[in-house]
């Protein structure tokens, strides 16, 4: 028996879902079992990986035994761990939900795609090679597009197409930046790039290109045009994983590149990102408030919440690691809360046959678990204590006030108020009786509980901050030096 400290958890996180995807592609009858078992094994693996990181510190692995710059390096620190844990938590809920959600024909496609997507996300969070990241980005993008279109229907197909074009454009722009960096510094490894980088026109061009590509995928205002259509029209579990995980994946790469390569030269760029973030908060929240359809409301709320992540950039230089802890926490709690919201919205849509907010028709009594999930997740999105969203936003707000960025602070507060408004709008209608009452459909328990458990987790995050921050510190991801 190999001692568990020597089990290569990091590599398993990538290989396991790949092998499982192949298995359920070849034998679709095994798909559901394989999917559920793999998800549980992945949870175990993230646990093992966390334990390993805590004992041994930074995870570094030269794939193929070839040291960088020739080979590809796997790299895992506290930030990678947070992203992996986020993927697993949301993944568990989505797996539970999807088990009952898809019919047999859809399941045959869903499970291999979902497992490949998990593999791609894990590979993305563990890669320190900017070309390898390009491939994982393409995997993530293509899998997501296929998933959005899975159930067909005019809106979903249009949304998927728009998303595909946006994601391909983003990847190619990113790749052009990779090409310039490689040909300037002779490596695609992030650690080596951090050592070799200087202030040259190439770095500025790479920042512009890779930044634009990744921000398009992250849907930062004004590059968010593709998001509402895709996120709102996809099947519910897919909407959840798009909003919870996918936008975070490209944001994660952007954050890494920023911390390692671009932060020293980008003071003005940071300010621009902050301003775009602020506009995103206001615009996204306002649009969310105006929507009459529940899933579109949740999708625009994502546009707004992405804004918060970028507000941190101009504050970071003075605030240091604690601010990035806040951003990471915000990512995590938004992922859980937004996934819960989309799953709950999916239940309401399935239950009533529509997602018109004005006709939610006493959902509180008729579908109490899902409505509770929506409301609880809403608490975290609003940033009310004691939720996880509160911790993240509080750290941001504190830094903004301390540094005298009053405008940003005000925008964050207004964003919170607008969020309360659109959440209460939904909850309010959920208490009201409406005129038209279509025949309700029954919702499987698993689908209701998946939403509620995620929502509860997003609230509980409000109590785990010190512990999570300690884990985040492994490998000093926000130290500002080499990753």
């Amino acid at each position, binding site marked *: 028996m190999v001692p568990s400290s*020597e089990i*290569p958890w990091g*590599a*398993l996180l990538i*290989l396991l879902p*790949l*092998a499982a*995807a*192949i298995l359920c*592609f*070849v*034998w679709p009858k095994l798909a559901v079992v394989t999917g559920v078992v793999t998800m549980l094994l992945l949870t175990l693996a993230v646990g093992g990986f966390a334990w390993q990181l805590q004992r041994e510190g930074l995870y570094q*692995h*030269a*794939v*193929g*035994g*070839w040291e960088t*710059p*020739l*080979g*590809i390096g*796997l790299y895992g620190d506290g930030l990678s761990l947070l992203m992996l844990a986020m993927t697993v938590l949301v993944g568990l809920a989505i797996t539970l939900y999807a088990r009952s959600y898809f019919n*047999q*024909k*859809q399941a045959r*496609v869903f499970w*291999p*795609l979902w497992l*490949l997507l998990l*593999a*791609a996300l894990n*590979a993305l969070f563990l890669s320190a090679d900017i*070309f*390898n990241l390009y*491939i*994982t980005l*393409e*995997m993530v993008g*293509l*899998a997501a*597009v*296929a998933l959005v*279109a*899975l159930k067909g229907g005019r809106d979903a197909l249009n949304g998927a197409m728009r998303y595909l074009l946006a994601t391909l454009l983003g990847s190619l722009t990113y790749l*052009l930046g990779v090409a*310039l960096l*490689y*040909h*300037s510094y*002779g*490596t695609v490894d992030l650690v080596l790039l951090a050592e070799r980088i200087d202030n*040259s*026109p*190439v770095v*500025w*061009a790479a920042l512009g290109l890779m930044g634009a590509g990744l921000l398009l995928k992250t849907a930062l205002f004004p590059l968010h045009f593709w998001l509402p259509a895709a996120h709102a029209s996809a099947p519910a579990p897919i909407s959840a994983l798009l909003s919870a995980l996918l936008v975070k994946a490209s944001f994660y790469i952007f954050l890494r590149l920023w911390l390692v390569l671009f932060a020293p030269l980008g003071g003005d760029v940071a300010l621009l990102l902050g301003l775009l973030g602020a506009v995103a908060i206001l615009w996204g929240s306002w649009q969310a408030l105006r929507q009459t359809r529940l899933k579109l409301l949740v999708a625009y709320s994502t546009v707004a919440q992405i804004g918060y992540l970028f507000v941190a950039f101009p504050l970071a230089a003075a605030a240091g690691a604690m601010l990035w802890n806040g951003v990471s926490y915000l990512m995590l709690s938004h992922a859980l809360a937004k996934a819960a919201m989309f799953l709950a919205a999916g239940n309401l849509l399935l239950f009533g046959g529509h997602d018109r907010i004005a006709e939610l028709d006493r959902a509180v009594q008729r579908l109490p678990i899902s409505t509770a999930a929506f409301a609880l997740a809403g608490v975290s999105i609003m940033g009310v204590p004691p939720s996880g969203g509160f911790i993240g936003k509080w750290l941001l707000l504190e830094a903004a006030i301390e540094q005298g960025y009053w405008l940003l602070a005000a925008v964050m507060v207004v964003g919170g108020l607008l969020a309360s408004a659109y959440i209460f709008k939904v909850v309010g209608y959920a208490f009201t009786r409406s005129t038209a009452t279509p025949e309700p459909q029954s919702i499987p328990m698993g689908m209701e509980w998946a939403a509620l458990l995620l929502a509860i987790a997003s609230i509980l995050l409000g109590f785990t901050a010190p512990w999570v921050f300690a884990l985040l510190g492994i490998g000093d991801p926000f130290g500002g030096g080499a990753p």
Partner: protein
Amino acid sequence: MEKVTLLIMLFDLLLGLGLLWLAWQLLESRNLFKAVVLFVAFGLLMALAWVRLDAPDVALAEAAIGAGLTGALLMAALAKLPSRDKSEPLADEKGHWLLRLALLLVAAGLGYVVHSLPESAPGLSAEIANNLASSGVNNPVTAVLLNFRGYDTLLELMVLMLALLGVWSLGIERSTREEPVGPVLTTLVQFLTPLLILVAAYLLWAGADAPGGAFQAGAVLAAAMVLLLLAGWPLQGLLTGVALRLMLVAGPATFVALAGLTLLDAQLLAYPPQHAGKLILLLEVAATLSIAVTLAALFLGYRPRTNKEPG
């Protein structure tokens, strides 16, 4: 000597301008059929550019995949569009001067950046040369693809599988063509298919030491299958179910299995040097098969199934 370099420079300049002109023509053509034909021509010119840039491996991949298969995919998709969609007036472009200006500035900026790069840079060629002996193959591109950066290739095979899953879930089965294809095409295909299989085998084998390898071989093999499909051979009826799926995953599965085995030695995808050559050949054979069948299946555009299988 002077005159020869001048001629070559003139050739490069003409080729470069030709590429830009063709790109403009194909993107701005009113007629979509013409655009697709021009795209294939563009791909062939690209292959010529790769040869000029001493990248024969890429030239082969471009000619087979970039121009050949993409062209076939585009044609097949065009045939499925409603006919009035195929030739449409272009959008009104008068209002786009601001965009043009912005893109011109971006291009100029990028041009300046590229110009600012040093005229000579070794890249990783020294590292490759130093480690080539223990990589198991003599062609540096194959060494990078299947050994030094084999992990990229593993993920890339997954991208192909992903795309196929997407196409299968979205594609709509179409009835096979009714009209007979005629003796000329049948004879042509009968003659070309064995030849293409031979070429694919050669490319696969030669890839260890010379330009070629799994991707090029797979693409040529896929071309043979596309030809057979076009000539009305019922490949989609012959190759279905588990047999088809096993062929599709042969490459990725071998790769993942090898990754798992190497992981037992604690080093992901590290081949023992004395076996590296054989392992790479094994990987390449499996990958060629999968790439070929996947590309052909992508061209077919829907999931082939036996009558018994559920929809």
